[in-house]
Every structure is written in structure tokens, then in C-alpha cells.
């Protein structure tokens, strides 16, 4: 018992010192600048001027509106579409098959997907090329805003392709905890249509279980940078992109309003989550009223079908986007309106020395270290809970997920200043640490449920046979949990590979990973090189998932009973 408390104390201390304090300190620095204090550029007086400057910056209002529309819109749409798809496919498709279907979309980093999608959708893009000129009559591309459109539709599409698979995954695992089949049978017996049972009976039970992931999606969509640069409008861009621009404008006086905007970005996320929570009772009341009316109609079915076809279309677009990158990476000349490249070349792949070789290596090292550390921390935390025989407190829950809920841009700039003052910036270690902030929560999400679902009789049997707590952990729990452990590691690795801002800020630009290089190159014009990076960037997590599936199969090759559950 004492042992458990000590272990928990150590982990809590590590999280406190490693996560909460740095984030608060980073925010502190940003807030100082937001209220006029940044001695480096000679600003020493507290004032509200940065805020006045911010509100007066051209396009500020539009940027704000864009952020809200794309962030809230994509989250609501993703939730509705994922729920519809889940309702239609559940029971018709095995969870493992669903996992395999979703894996490429979960593994592909945002930037890579966005680059491919931009090429797919643009008026001179792949879709137009495949249809031109025979079907469209275009011998030159039309002037249509299909990407970078002023309403952010392309950005919303891009976000949906990343968010729906994530929500489907968490919905799938939440449904595993519910007696879906019995409830469906009961509902059908009472004369409710299949779709209506889903909407009225099952989804309300799923919702509380996936609330946190929804907030994570919402926070991410409101503050995304890399995807918004590539797919969003540019004049003005979303607030997060505008902040990046102001932070990097030649006119250093803009650093102060940029800091104010970074702080505002955090407020927006907090307010959006607050508003969401505020709307829940209202939705609940409406839902109850609707439920009590007792309508049994089959009318929900067409809606579910429509949602599912939208989801399928989005997934096909996403898959085509990834394939287009692969094609570009081996193309030489590929001009409009050719459906496929006129000439091919392996030049991009043949010269690892000029770039991708080192970025690949750095990505691998950072990913493995950040994942290993996060996994160790997560195991320590969960084992600590087991030994203390206590459920997780709400504050602990909030603590773990804090980095996913606060916008990175709000504290990373301040944190960088702080790190420089301590003299620990610009290295691999700083980057690895900053990534653990974002990898650890995802590892916890992936590992918590399987860990709790572990049949404790095995552990008790081991205890009865005289095994101490450490031996129970090493010899019983971890081997039994090897499959979820590997999956958690793969997810953690994928998260690490995709990190953009933490790597950029904490590495002082010196640590080049596949993602930072891909985003930088996306600002250049060579889709072929971008293709090479994006394929590697999407491929690495893919391989990690592959290994995650293979290791348990190998370890369990002579223990069939273990290869099923957990």
C-alpha cells in the first residue's frame, strides 16, 4: 500500500515538474509579453497596448471568425458523421477490421495528409487531371477556390479526415463497454428502427465515455497550424496561423500583440470547451423531450446512410491524397492535364545524404526515446493506481490531458525563452522532453482501459503463489498486456513523428525531423521532394503499427489463449 502511494507520488511529482510547471511558466512568459513586458525588444512597461494593437491588426476579426467556424464546425461535423458511420457499421464490421481500415489515417501526420489533399482538390489537381480535358473540357485549370477558400471548407475537410477516424476508434472502444446487442434487441422489440435505437439509446451512453477525446479534437481543431497553412485561406489566415506570422514578422514590435493573440488563443479554446459543457444540459433536456415523445420511425436510417457515405467519401479522398504523394515522390514531370506523370525518376529517393537521411534518423531517435519514456511513466502511473487501490482522481485526469487541451502556441514561445534562460534549448533532449508532454497523454488514453480491464484473478493467483508486487508486474501483468502496450507505443510513436511546433520551438530550428522538413518544404514548390518526406513521415508510424501487431503474435505464438483479448 505504501509502495503504491510512493510510486504515485513519484509519478505525480514528475508530471507536476515535467508538465504543469513548464506549461504555467511558458504561459507566464507569454502573458508578460501580452501585457507589454519583453525586455529584449526594449518593452518594459506594463500596459494594455498590445491588446489594442491586436484588435486593430488587419483581418483580426476575420481570422477569429475563421478559427471559430473551422474549429467548432469540424468538431461538430466529425462527431455527427462518426456517430452515423459507427451506427451503420457496428456489428457489420469487426473492430479489428475497422482498426486496420483506420490505421493509415491515424498514422498519417496532419501535414502530409494536408499536402496530398491540397494536390488532390486544387483546380489543377489530380481529380481535375483525371477528368480533363475529356469530361470537363478544361485544357487549362479553371479559376476555382477549391483549396484555400475563404470559408475554410478545404481546411474543414482536411480536419475531418484526421478527426473522424480518431473518433471512430474511441467510439469503438467505448461501445466495447456497453451491452449493445441486448439493447438493440430490446429497442427493436419495442418497435424502434435500428437507426433510432442508435441515436436515442446507444449514443447517449457512448457520449460520456468519449467526452474527453471530443475536447481534445476541439482544442486541436481550434489551434491547428500546419494543416491551416496548407489548406486554409491566406488573407487573412486562421488565428493560429496569423499568430505564427506575427511572431515571425520582421517588425519585432509585433511580438507583443502576437503574444496577446497567443494568450487569446488559449482563452478561445477554454471558452469553446466551456460553451460545449454549457450546451450539454440543454442538449440533454431536448433529447429527453424527444425521447419521451416516443417516435419509433425508421426515418433515422437515411440520415445514417448519408453520414456513412460522406465518411466513406472522406476516407477515399484521404487515401487518394496519400497515394498521390507516393506517385509524386517517383515522378519527374507531371503537368496538367496528365492523369499520371509524363516521366518518372527516383532522384528524390536516391539522395538521402542531401536531406531525408538525417531527418529520418532524428525522427526515429526522438520518437523511440519519447515513446519509451512515456510508456514507462504510464506503466508507473497505472501500477501506482493498482497498488494504492484507488481510482484516478479528477485532478489527476485533468493533469494528464492538460497538454492536449491547451494550445501549443500559447506556451511554447514563452517556454522557449525560459529554456534559453536555463541554457537547455536547441538540443535533442529539449525536443524529446517537449514531445513527451504530448505523447504521454495519448499513451495513457490507449493504455488505461485495457489495463483496468485486465482480469485481476491472474494477478491474485500470482500473489497467492508468493509473487511480490514487482514480480507480479513483470511476470504477469506486462506479458498479458503486451498487445495494448505495443499499440500504445505505436500510437505514441505516431504522435511523436507528427509533432511540429514543439520540435520547431524547442529545437531552436536545429533539430530537423521529417515533419519540420516536410512543412518547410511544403512552402517550396517541389512536390516530388515533399512526396518523399511525406511518404516517410506517414510510413514510419505505419511501420510502428505493423511492429505493434507483429510482436504480440510472435511472443504469443505458442500461447493462443493470450492472443485474443485485452
Amino acid at each position, binding site marked *: 500500500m505504501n509502495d503504491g502511494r510512493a510510486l504515485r507520488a513519484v509519478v505525480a511529482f514528475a508530471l507536476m515538474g515535467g508538465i504543469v510547471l513548464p506549461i504555467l511558466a511558458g504561459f507566464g512568459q507569454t502573458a508578460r509579453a501580452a501585457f507589454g513586458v519583453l525586455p529584449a525588444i526594449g518593452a518594459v512597461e506594463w500596459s494594455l497596448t498590445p491588446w489594442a494593437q491586436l484588435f486593430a491588426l488587419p483581418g483580426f476579426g*476575420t481570422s477569429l471568425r475563421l478559427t471559430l467556424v473551422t474549429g467548432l464546425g469540424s468538431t461538430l461535423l466529425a462527431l455527427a458523421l462518426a456517430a452515423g458511420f459507427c451506427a451503420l457499421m457496428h456489428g457489420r464490421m469487426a473492430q479489428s477490421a475497422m482498426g486496420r481500415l483506420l490505421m493509415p489515417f491515424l498514422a498519417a501526420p496532419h501535414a502530409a495528409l494536408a499536402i496530398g489533399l491540397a494536390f488532390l482538390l486544387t483546380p489543377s489537381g489530380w481529380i481535375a487531371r483525371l477528368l480533363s480535358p475529356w469530361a470537363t473540357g478544361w485544357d487549362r485549370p479553371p479559376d476555382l477556390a477549391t483549396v484555400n477558400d475563404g470559408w475554410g471548407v478545404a481546411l474543414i475537410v482536411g480536419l475531418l479526415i484526421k478527426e473522424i477516424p480518431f473518433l471512430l476508434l474511441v467510439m469503438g472502444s467505448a461501445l466495447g463497454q456497453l451491452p449493445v446487442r441486448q439493447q438493440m434487441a430490446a429497442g427493436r422489440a419495442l418497435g424502434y428502427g435500428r437507426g433510432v435505437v442508435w441515436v436515442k439509446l446507444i449514443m447517449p451512453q457512448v457520449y460520456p465515455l468519449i467526452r474527453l477525446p471530443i475536447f481534445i479534437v476541439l482544442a486541436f481543431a481550434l489551434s491547428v497550424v500546419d494543416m491551416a497553412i496548407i489548406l486554409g485561406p491566406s*488573407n487573412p489566415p486562421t488565428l493560429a496561423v496569423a499568430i505564427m506570422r506575427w511572431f515571425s514578422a520582421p517588425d519585432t514590435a509585433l*511580438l507583443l500583440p502576437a503574444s496577446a493573440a497567443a494568450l487569446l488563443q488559449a482563452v478561445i479554446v477554454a471558452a469553446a470547451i466551456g460553451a460545449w459543457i454549457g450546451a450539454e444540459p440543454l442538449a440533454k433536456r431536448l433529447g429527453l423531450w424527444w425521447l419521451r415523445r416516443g417516435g419509433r420511425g425508421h426515418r433515422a436510417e437515411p440520415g445514417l446512410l448519408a453520414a456513412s457515405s460522406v465518411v466513406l467519401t472522406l476516407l477515399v479522398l484521404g487515401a487518394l491524397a496519400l497515394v498521390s504523394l507516393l506517385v509524386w515522390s517517383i515522378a519527374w514531370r507531371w503537368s496538367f492535364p496528365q492523369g499520371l506523370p509524363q516521366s518518372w525518376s527516383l532522384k528524390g529517393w536516391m539522395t538521402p545524404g542531401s536531406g531525408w537521411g538525417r531527418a529520418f534518423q532524428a525522427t526515429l531517435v526522438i520518437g523511440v526515446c519519447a515513446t519509451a519514456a512515456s510508456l514507462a511513466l504510464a506503466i508507473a502511473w497505472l501500477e501506482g493506481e493498482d497498488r494504492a487501490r484507488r481510482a484516478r482522481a479528477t485532478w489527476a485526469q485533468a493533469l494528464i490531458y492538460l497538454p492536449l487541451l491547451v494550445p501549443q502556441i500559447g506556451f511554447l514561445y514563452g517556454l*522557449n*525563452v525560459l529554456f534559453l534562460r536555463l541554457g537547455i534549448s536547441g538540443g535533442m533532449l529539449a525536443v524529446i522532453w517537449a514531445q513527451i508532454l504530448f505523447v504521454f497523454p495519448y499513451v495513457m488514453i490507449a493504455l488505461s482501459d485495457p489495463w483496468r480491464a485486465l482480469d485481476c484473478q491472474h494477478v491474485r493467483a500470482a500473489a497467492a503463489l508468493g509473487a511480490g508486487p514487482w514480480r507480479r508486474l513483470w511476470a504477469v501483468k506486462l506479458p498479458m498486456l503486451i498487445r495494448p502496450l505495443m499499440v500504445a507505443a505505436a500510437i505514441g510513436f505516431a504522435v511523436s513523428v507528427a509533432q511540429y511546433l514543439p520540435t520547431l520551438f524547442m529545437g531552436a530550428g536545429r533539430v530537423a525531423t521529417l515533419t519540420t522538413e516536410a512543412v518547410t*518544404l511544403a512552402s517550396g514548390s517541389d512536390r516530388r521532394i515533399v512526396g518523399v518526406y511525406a511518404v516517410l513521415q506517414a510510413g514510419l508510424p505505419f511501420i510502428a503499427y505493423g511492429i505493434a501487431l507483429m510482436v504480440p503474435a510472435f511472443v504469443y505464438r505458442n500461447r493462443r489463449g493470450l492472443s485474443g483479448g485485452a
Partner: protein
Amino acid sequence: MRSLMIAALGLGLATPALADWQQTLEAARGQTVYWNAWGGDARTNAFIAWVGEQTEAKYGVKVEQVKLTDTATAVTQVISEKAAGKDSGGSVDMIWINGPNFLSMKEQGLLHGPFANDLPNAKYLDLSPNSAASVDFTVPVEGYESAWRLARFVFTYDSAVVAEPPRSMAGFLDYAKANPGRVTHPDVSNFMGATFLKQALIEFAPDQAALQLPVTDAAFEAAASPLWGWYDALRPFMWREGATFPENESVQQQLLNDGEVDFGVSFDPASAAGAIAEGLLPDTARVFVPEGGSIGNISFVAIPYNAANREGAEVVANFLLDPATQAHQQNIEVLGSFSVLDPSKLNVEAAALFAALPSSPALPKLEELGPTLLEPHASWMTKLVAAWGERYTK
């Protein structure tokens, strides 16, 4: 270099500067220079990698390119370091810089120097008071940055699509009216987008001399009003009706390659030839400049005041000015950017290096580029970008 040094010592000509340089070379050996440079151009990146190989072999100085999406990122980094009191051992050793970023860093005392005029290879430069290498956007360089490549504003186009390109910025309006949606420029928050506007500003401004002085509200009003008249007329006929713009010139080149627009912009007269060689533009791509000439400037490298590898950075800056390096850089198969050296100061062997360079039909001759227009004072660009934002970013 070493034999030259020995010869100089042997003749008893060891000037203090030369002795200092020997010390710099010694201190630089073993250093790794983190060169912060915009990383969106694969050819430039490859050239910087080549520079690193050469300096490592010759002087034991490695070069690591920190690939930036925007040069100002490096400026922000130095400011953060200064904010944190890190006055030595900074992470930025050298920056590819010019114009407003240089003005900003110089004004805030963020630069090491003066060093540039003491580099041994500075003797090949024309450093007379008003020469291109001693004035950066009308801001006196005063040895705080060292030249490395020449930039001239040019337009690229596909000669198979556009038979006759516009002859002036005013001509772009006629072209756009006849071909709606085929003209654009990079986003004005980007340097090249601002340069497009500056080119028009210079063409339309009634008083050229005012552009060389720090901007005032009255002067700006007078100079910019014909520009806005032209731009208001042009904008509805631009790509996407002027509501959105390509992020930078590379993205615009991609649009040109995709056939979405008819013109690209570049600060490199060899860009079309280079892009053809890389398979990034069709073989029929060419460059042109407006008849009155175009804006030109020199790209520099500067060293932050707190650079950890200052000596190494100086050695690299000096290597960049070596005639052999400049000739390699001007080679169309390498980078194709014109040399910054003064041809009259080159000896016979160095001049021969340039004469032997390969040519390309897409490469303009120097005389085809017309006169070089001076950059307006850097404050004009800041004002122009802000005013454009107020007018067109809603």
C-alpha cells in the same frame, strides 16, 4: 590560401589584418556553423551543403543549414536569446538576410561586426559608398553583413502559353483584363509579394528620390495613390479575384507549372533555367523584366552578436566570396545566381572561370535584364505591407 599566407609572411607583408585572419582560421577549425537560411529551394539547400563540404575540407569548418520557412524566425530566435540573457553561445551563427530583417537586427544591436570589410576576399567587391554591396535597401551595411548572391526581380512565364508578356507593371492590367484569373503575386506578408508591390510603386511613383529617404505619411500618400488606383483596377481580374494569394514565390512557381496562372516571380534571373533543369517548369519557360528595369539587391550573410561559432561563420562568409565559389554558384547547373564580385577586380584566372560557364536558352543575358532599380528605403516596405493589409485584408 595557406600558400598565399606563407608567401605573404615570407615577403614580410604580414599586415595586422592578415595576422588576425590567421587567428580566425585557427579558432574556426573544428567549429560547426549553424547557417539559418530559407529552406524552400532545393538548389540553394544543395549549394549550402556543398559549401559545407568545401569549408570542412579546406578549413575544418562544418556547415549545418537551419532551414527556415521565413528568415524572421532566426531574428525572433536571437531576440528570444537576448530576452533570456544569453549573450554568448547563441544558437544562430549566420543568417541569410537582407532588407527589413537586417535593419531590424542592426537597429537593435543584434549583429556582430563590423567584420565584412576585413574578410580577405572582400577585396573582390566594389565597396565604394553607394555600391550595391555597401547599401542594403538604402541602409548602410557598414560591415555588419557580407554579400553572397545577387538578386534581380524577374517574372517567369511559359513562352508556349504567353506569346507576348506585359512590358510594364501597367501592362499587367491590360493582360489581366484580357485573361482574367491568370495573374497573381505572392502573399504580401512574404518578401516577394511585397517586392511585386514595390516594383509597381517605383514604376508609378511621381517622385523617385522620395523613395530613397525614410518614409513619411505625406510622401507615402503621394507615392502610393497611383499604385492603389492601378491595384484596385487589377484586383478583380486576378487569380481567385485577389481574395487569396500563393504563400510565396515557390508556390506561385508551382501554380505556373500547373498552368493555374501565367506568371511567376523570382529574385533570381536564372530561376527559369534552373527550374527547367530540375523538371519544375516546362522547357519553354523564360524570364522577362519590365522595360524600365527591375528592382535588384544583394543577399547578405550576417552574424548575430551572440553567435557561438563566430570565427567559423566569418570563414564561411569569406569562402562565399571566393571567385571560384562565386563562379560555381553562377553555374546554371548548380545555382545559376549571378556573382556579386566586381568583374574589374578579378584576375585573368578568375575571369576565365566565369567565361567557361555553360549557358542555357532560358538564361537571360545581362543586357536583357535592363537597368537595376534601387530598393526603396526599408521603411517603405514596412509601410507598404501595413497599408496593403489595411486596404485588402478584411
